[in-house]
């Protein structure tokens, strides 16, 4: 059993693991050890490669280079099913349940008890009921999973994995959609798994959790591992420094000039009052021309709903004024007409047409302005897109390659840049640097500030507090679809914002996690 693979105490060893995706080196020679009975935290910024590493361990991706050993055996080429059979379970970030099936079917995971080859429903439901009670989950076995609120779906997804007694469990932000009590419940599950000798890898976006839960932490930055520490020997400051890099801490430093800017005379560009919808409750928001307002809050607080509602994606009530004029935000086109633009959080799903060229993606939002009688005019289109590409220093072999071949940072610049060809007053950015490397992140911050300087009202929605603190003149904190607090950017700290976000009134079951 023991060999070069570690063996003995080491349950999982990943050595020199590399993985490349089109346009980005997601992992570069990463090393990770997990011992039996140990909880290892995997720490890093968005896009540092944490999720990719876990997916390789679980057989969902094949590594380009490097080795993976589990229990002394090489599992570098295991399929997801083979990894599961070995006892490696992944609880992914996205909640993975079958919404059209019942709680019992999901829990028993396609292996319900059978009689004469047919599913024995009575026994299946009884068995599920028994197991749910054991895990202290208050769910009825016959309910449709799709009818459950998101946090209960996530609990079920975790329970489904835990009941199989896996030997290694990989958690990728399991608590982001959970309430405080449920998160506590998950912590207890994790501790009992570790006590039974299972290995656990844990990813979370809340740094505190690493200190509450893990024995050791391995830190990733831009796809490289920058070190492993005993959790007890590090503090939060050092962890952040490892995450972002000593020289890179600077990119999260707030420019001093920001706090001396006087915006009180600037006209109000965006004025929202009483904005309500199925996910928002009576939201008021004022943004001056030239001002950057950060929207913070937990997952599910309604940040993305607010951003998308401002862009006319969802039915709503309440009034919105742009530059003093009331506007009806009935559709994205109507919002565009009013001078509002949205850079959506998921640029691959909603921001870009990856199969089309860089140029066409840049031109898309302003096609109808430029065209005459519906016919494209190539000359202005070439000139406009080339200008934006130059201004934003979009790196591509040519503007005619497919947008999908570019790195995340360059794709994000396209998603922002396409709006700059329109007559814009309000720019809403949802997670502007998700999946973007550190260099591009700094460029995007500079770009957002330059746009504000030009007189745009900017709304930045972000789950990264450091980002909000870096950019915003003013931070608005949301919880459960409401605005629960506001702070001046200069005065705000991670602690003060987190406190606001968590002291919101009790959970509403209907408020599903932010889309």
């Amino acid at each position, binding site marked *: 059993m023991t060999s070069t693979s570690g063996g003995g105490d080491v349950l999982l060893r990943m050595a020199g693991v590399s993985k490349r995706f089109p346009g980005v080196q997601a992992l570069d020679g990463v090393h990770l050890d997990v011992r039996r009975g140990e909880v290892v935290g995997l720490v890093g910024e968005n896009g540092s490669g944490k999720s990719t590493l876990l997916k390789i361990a679980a057989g969902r991706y094949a590594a380009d280079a490097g080795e993976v050993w589990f229990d002394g055996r090489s599992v570098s080429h295991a399929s997801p099913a083979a990894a599961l059979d070995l006892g490696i379970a992944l609880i992914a970030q996205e909640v993975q349940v079958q919404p059209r099936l019942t709680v019992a079917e999901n829990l028993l995971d396609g292996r319900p008890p059978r009689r004469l080859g047919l599913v024995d429903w009575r026994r299946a439901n009884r068995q599920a009921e028994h197991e749910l009670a054991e895990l202290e989950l208050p769910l009825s076995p016959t309910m449709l999973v799709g009818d459950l609120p998101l946090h209960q779906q996530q609990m079920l997804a975790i329970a489904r994995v835990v009941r199989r007694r896996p030997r290694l469990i990989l958690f990728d932000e399991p608590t982001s959609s959970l309430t405080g009590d449920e998160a506590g419940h998950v912590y207890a599950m994790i501790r009992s798994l570790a006590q039974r000798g299972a290995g656990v890898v844990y990813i979370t976006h809340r740094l505190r959790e690493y200190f509450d839960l893990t024995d050791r932490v391995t830190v990733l930055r831009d796809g490289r591992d920058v070190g492993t520490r005993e959790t007890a020997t590090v503090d939060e400051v050092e962890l952040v420094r490892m995450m972002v890099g000593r020289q890179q801490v600077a990119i999260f430093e707030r420019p001093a000039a920001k706090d001396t800017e006087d915006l009180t005379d600037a006209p109000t560009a965006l004025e929202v009052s009483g904005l309500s919808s199925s996910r928002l409750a009576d939201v008021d928001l004022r943004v001056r021309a030239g001002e950057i307002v950060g929207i913070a809050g937990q997952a599910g607080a309604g940040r993305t709903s607010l951003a998308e509602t401002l862009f006319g994606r969802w039915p709503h009530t309440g009034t919105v004024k742009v530059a003093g004029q009331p506007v009806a935000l009935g559709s994205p086109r109507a919002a565009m007409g009013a001078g509002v633009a949205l850079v959506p959080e998921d640029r691959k799903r909603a921001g870009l047409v990856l199969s089309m060229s860089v140029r066409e993606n840049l031109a898309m939002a302003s096609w109808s302005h430029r065209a005459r009688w519906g016919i494209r005019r190539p000359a202005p289109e070439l000139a406009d897109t*080339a200008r934006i590409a130059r201004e934003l220093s979009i790196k591509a072999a040519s503007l005619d390659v497919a947008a999908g071949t570019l790195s995340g940072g360059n794709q994000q610049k396209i998603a922002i840049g396409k709006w700059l060809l329109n007559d814009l007053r309000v720019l809403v950015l949802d997670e502007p640097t998700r999946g973007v490397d550190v260099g591009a992140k700094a460029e995007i911050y500079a770009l957002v500030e330059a746009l504000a300087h030009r007189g745009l009202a900017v709304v930045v929605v972000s789950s990264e507090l450091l980002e909000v603190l870096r950019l915003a003149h003013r931070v608005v904190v949301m919880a459960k679809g409401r605005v629960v607090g506001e702070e001046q950017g200069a005065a705000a700290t991670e602690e003060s914002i987190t406190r606001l976000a968590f002291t919101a009134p009790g959970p509403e079951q209907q408020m599903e996690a932010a889309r």
Partner: protein
Amino acid sequence: MSSSDDPTVRTATVPFVADRLTPGGWRSRLTGTSAPAYAVAALLVLVVLVELLTEPNFSSSSNITNLLRTGAVPMLLCVGMTMVILTGGIDLSMGGILSVCGIAYAKLVMSGVPSEVALLVTVLLGAAIGFLVNGVLIGRVGLSFFVVTLASASLLSGFALLWSGNRQYDLSWDSLARTLGNDALAGVLPYGALLAVLAVVVAGVVLTYTVFGRSVYAIGGNPEAAQLSGVRSEWVVPAVYGVSGACAGLAGVMMIGRQTIADPTAGNNTIVLYVVAATLLAGVSITGGSGSVYAALIGTAFLQVLANALALRGFNNSWQMVVTGAILLVAVYLDRVRQRLLARRA
């Protein structure tokens, strides 16, 4: 469109970060999205060469004319089908529209309406059915394209039979239909084929040089991103079904000319599936957003020439259907292999 040699772009760009191939050059022809079109074109040339060398009847002018004549209707249908498939949909009702429009044309000319007017009304009828029935239900109401066009296919095919009383009308006397479906310029180039090629060129220009055309690609490539960029999906989607209906309407009249009768079953499911196969063969992606009307032209031409070659060797229609199906499977399999290889290298 050509812009990689635009000087302003050169200065604006910096070395590329990803190690993907740059566009242009023979390597991208073998690996890019138009690789299937080049491959099928090469096969087409190969089949033509083999036929020229081994089958004396192939190059006879009557055979060529016949080939073009029979290819005209599927080609025209492919233009509409390509636009629909580029948006990520499919139009299974083209046959039904073709049948209804054929009967409509027959009823009009038999009641004394001038043929030219009848033709115009027929094409507009096809467009209206496509736009108002398929297009609105799919693009506005948001129903599944598959279910909607499947249902309207059945509905329209049945309606054509009811409307005609399950009769065929003899229209051998109608000179306009005969011109479109049968006659040939200088006795060699069938007018129908000229019309189909014209339709291909017009569609190609529209798809490349108009906002509408680029919207078609954007919607097929990523409907959500297109909508969030202000693309008017609620008009573009109904419009492509309208174009598809118009193509079917015109094809209905051409079919009358070719067969000298108006047949309520002219647009059967076989022809629709054949058109889908021809469209997909040379790389129009079934998931939308990728491919071109020229690829569809090449696909249709290849299947037509192959069918002709088989017929000259005495294989009947059944064999042609078997071969078409087999070729389509091989083509999509090879394209998947190509994509895997590309993904691995990326």
